[in-house]
């Protein structure tokens, strides 16, 4: 556990409150018995079982002892016993938990099975069992609660350790010859440590509560000793006479228990947040730049192109913002995209991860994440103007139009179907909702569409669940789902990335057939420029949230933007010269919250000069070809950004 985590946990108001409370309890545990230990034992025969008075703020017990003092003094005993029990649980739990990783396969499995059986029983039942075995009293209760908590901690250790053990770096260490013991101490425990510390903290809280419970039942601390639970039990008998006698120790128990639990949870939250932040691209290494300029002015007549009248998709100035680390408190992974797709056209969007290509597609389809803010000067999808609709996706009419005219195909067919619903019903749902079809008719159409995409035995397969389909078949079913109505536009977001290459070809051919037969336009998003070139007539290249080049597939060998050229040269294909090194692009794409001013590609481009500090707009470089570059490359040039020579695939054929 690193120091900054603790600090971050303490900055959180909940964590801070919990920590202050714990600190106060610790101080009380040390000083209260010293200050008031004797006074709390003092009996006052003149004030037996009194309510609150000036002398005894919370009243007295049956022997006339002051309740307030007794509650304060009991802090030490209550906390101490709880921590002792926690220590036993953690110690036994870690031993039992690490054992399977150290033992052989069979004995390890025995330990796991035993722990699993024990975990099935609630801790209180185990505690009662052990309380009988270890005997009634404080010592017995510590052992009982410690033993009762051990199985669940052991299980936690087992799952964390085995999840760490399943990760590649542990495999790599094993291959590198790291011994079993060192593996546990250097790799497994440090990486499992965080959740374990968090849970031990939470566990201390529940041990405290459990202890109070046992003492309350009379099975824990025995008189004349007393802890909060005991005081509570005694107070409850006289709750009508003096409620404070029962409530005060109760509040003490709850406060202390909560302090531990909340501290643990706020640490867990901080740790979790950190993990989420790590998932994003780290923002180092990119050159320091001035803050990005104000939102780009609407490219009104962008490069002098008139909006196409028979466009099924017309996007101008699309920006997608997330609250983030940008200069104005927002980051824009998509930052001013223009895109237009004509009826029946196939357009490919290519880019690396982080280029904003998928987010562009999702935003166009109004499927961007909830916390994204999508703005556009123009956003017409399948003849539906979405620019001014705002957030009201609940409009049934709009839903019906979008649902019937726009179809989506997603990247991972394994996760894109509802696992608990039969495939046929998931297809049928589209027309049942949007066209009001009956169950039978909708299912019949679903079967028909499954046949259209050549799913064998469509009738039978419609009644199967998604997990009974292979990846390729699911992707076909996904396309079939899009065909339930008559779509004008199909947006396919990396539809073949999760598939094998032979299946990829089948799915791409299917998309092509569908496009030909239905006349729907297809937008294909992919990181693989070769895939896009095979299917699409026109290719749009994205980099750092913008379109950098737009060209007919047949002109890929004449790409004008240095990035497009480098992208083509860095991917080997079956004709690449094996004696030449591949083109490489130095550096890495800029973080969306920290893009350089002007051309985003300039820091990685060997042609960049001062001119590139200004924002390049898409400009026509050849008929049907536009590039956002101050120094567009012209002609079938072999040069690449790194200055190394590379051959470009010659004779690119129109798809």
């Amino acid at each position, binding site marked *: 556990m690193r120091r900054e985590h603790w600090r971050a946990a303490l900055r959180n108001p*909940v964590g801070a409150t919990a920590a202050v409370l714990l600190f106060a309890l610790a101080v009380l545990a040390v000083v209260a018995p010293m200050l008031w230990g004797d006074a709390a034992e003092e009996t006052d025969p003149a004030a037996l079982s009194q309510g609150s008075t000036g002398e005894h703020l919370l009243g007295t017990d049956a022997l006339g002892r002051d309740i307030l003092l007794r509650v304060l003094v009991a802090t030490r005993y209550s906390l101490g016993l709880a921590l002792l029990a926690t220590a036993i649980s953690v110690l036994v739990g870690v031993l039992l938990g690490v054992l399977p990783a150290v033992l052989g396969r069979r004995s390890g499995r025995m330990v796991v099975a035993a722990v699993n*059986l024990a975990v*099935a*029983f*609630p801790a*209180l*039942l185990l505690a*009662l*069992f052990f*309380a*009988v*075995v270890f*005997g*009634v009293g404080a010592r017995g209760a510590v052992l009982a609660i410690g033993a009762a908590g051990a199985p669940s901690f052991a299980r936690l250790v087992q799952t964390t350790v085995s999840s760490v053990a399943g990760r590649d770096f542990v495999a790599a260490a094993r291959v590198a010859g790291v011994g079993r013991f060192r593996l546990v101490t250097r790799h497994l425990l440090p990486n499992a440590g965080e959740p374990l510390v968090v849970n031990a903290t939470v566990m201390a*809280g529940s041990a405290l*509560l*459990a202890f*109070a*419970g046992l003492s*309350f*039942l*009379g*099975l824990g601390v025995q008189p004349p000793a007393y802890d909060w639970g005991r005081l*509570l039990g005694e107070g*409850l008998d006289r*709750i009508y006479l003096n*409620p404070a006698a*029962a*409530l005060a120790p*109760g509040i003490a*128990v*709850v406060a202390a*228990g*909560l302090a531990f*639990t*909340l501290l643990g949870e706020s640490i867990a939250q901080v740790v979790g947040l950190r993990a989420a932040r790590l998932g994003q691209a780290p923002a180092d290494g990119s050159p320091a730049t001035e803050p990005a300029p104000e939102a780009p002015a609407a490219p009104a007549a962008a490069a002098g192109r008139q909006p196409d009248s028979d466009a099924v998709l017309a996007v101008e100035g699309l920006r997608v913002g997330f609250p983030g680390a940008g200069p104005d408190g927002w980051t824009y992974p998509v930052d001013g995209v223009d895109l237009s797709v004509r009826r029946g056209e196939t357009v490919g969007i290519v880019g690396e991860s982080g280029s904003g290509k998928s987010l562009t597609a999702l935003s166009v*389809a109004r*499927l961007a994440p*909830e*916390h994204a803010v999508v703005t556009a000067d123009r956003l017409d999808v399948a003849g539906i103007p979405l620019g001014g609709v705002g957030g009201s996706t*609940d409009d*049934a009419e709009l*839903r019906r139009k979008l*649902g019937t005219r726009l179809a*989506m195909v*997603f990247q*991972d067919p394994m*996760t*894109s*179907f*509802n*696992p*608990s*619903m039969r495939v046929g019903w998931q297809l049928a*749902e*589209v027309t049942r*909702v*949007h066209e009001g079809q009956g169950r039978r008719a909708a299912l019949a159409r679903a079967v028909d569409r499954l046949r259209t995409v050549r799913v064998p035995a469509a009738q039978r397969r419609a009644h199967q*669940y998604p997990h009974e389909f292979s990846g390729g078949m699911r992707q076909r079913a996904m396309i079939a*789902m899009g065909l339930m109505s008559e779509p004008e536009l199909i947006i396919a977001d990396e539809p073949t990335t999760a598939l094998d290459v032979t299946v990829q070809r089948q799915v791409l051919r299917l998309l092509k057939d569908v496009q030909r037969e239905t006349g729907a336009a297809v937008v294909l998003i992919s990181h693989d420029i070769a895939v896009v070139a095979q299917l699409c007539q026109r290719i749009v290249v994205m980099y750092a949230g913008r379109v950098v080049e737009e060209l007919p597939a047949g002109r890929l060998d004449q790409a004008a933007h240095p990035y497009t050229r480098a992208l083509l040269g860095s991917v080997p294909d079956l004709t690449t010269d094996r004696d030449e090194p591949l083109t490489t692009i130095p550096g890495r794409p800029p973080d969306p919250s920290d893009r350089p001013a002007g051309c985003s590609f300039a820091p990685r481009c060997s042609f960049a000069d001062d001119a590139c500090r200004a924002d390049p707009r898409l400009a026509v470089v050849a008929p049907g070809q536009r590039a956002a570059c101050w120094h567009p490359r012209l002609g079938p040039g072999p040069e690449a950004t790194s200055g190394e020579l590379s051959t470009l695939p010659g004779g690119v054929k129109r798809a």
Partner: protein
Amino acid sequence: MTTPSTPAAVTPPPGPGPAGSAAAGPRASWAGNPWVSFLARRLVRLVASVVVLVTLAFLMIHLIPGDPVRASLGITAPPDLVEARRESLGLNDPLHVQYLDYVRGLFAGDLGTSMTSNVPVADTIGQRLPATASLAVAAFVLVMLVAIPLGLGMAVLTRGGRRRGAELGFTSSSAVVAAIPEFLLAVGLVFVFGVTLGWFPVAGRTDATSYVLPVLALSLGPALLMARIVRVEALAVLGEDFVRTARAKRLPPWRVYLRHMFPNALTSTLTIGGLLLSGMIVGTVLVENVFAWPGMGMTIVSSILSKDYPLVQGIVLVYGVAVLLVNLVVDLLLALADPRSTIREG
């Protein structure tokens, strides 16, 4: 498609046909049925767990340091009385004989005899069980009725980081209440509704109103805990790709939530529900002692204190079996609810 030649040869005989030639058919399909093998495996596991439980319950009396009878009767008891009691309990027999006797007794419904009252343990349990069971079941039903709609509703309201205030309010207040153990909650309820307001009885099991406070005490924490978990699970499901697919189909929101989110959040809800029910069955021990509820929880505590070990043994066994049965039911429901569940993997 192959053309069917002789139908009789291709299709297996439907159902259990006449004895003889057809007998192999049903048996083969019976053995191949994943449900049957799943049930068989699950029952084997249950039996194994019960055996472990029975053994531990049996051993409990022997793990106690010293002589349980002496401990039970007190140090002043005359030695011949102790000896007679040991003899009547069979404690002088060899361990394995005692174990076999114990197991045999269990099969006959004999859980032993109380050391203090000489009443058969089974009778006492039979008398006390309904009070405990009705309490646990009522609390569980309340938990489910409150937690699932609350959790799903909160998930929908706070999806995608919406309504941060409501989210913070819900998570922090539910965390606080869920962290209060049932017996302290019970004390608080007694104070507010019994002592201060005087609305409900605070002790004993009389009419329907006597259920109110114990059930509340038992269910409030688990209900909020469950609601939190349901919310987190539902939010996780909302982040799944297939929910995006459902949105891409432009289904109305209620359909997305009820048809696509809810069934897929059910699995973990069931798992947690089972754990909570187990916890609540045992949690009755504390609540019963606050409300002087005449159930098994009162009995087990008093018998632990009076060192009436056969009675403790019997009640631990009943609690344990109840927990195992809950686990079994949960596993069966999980298998039914999830088409991908292990039973199909075999």
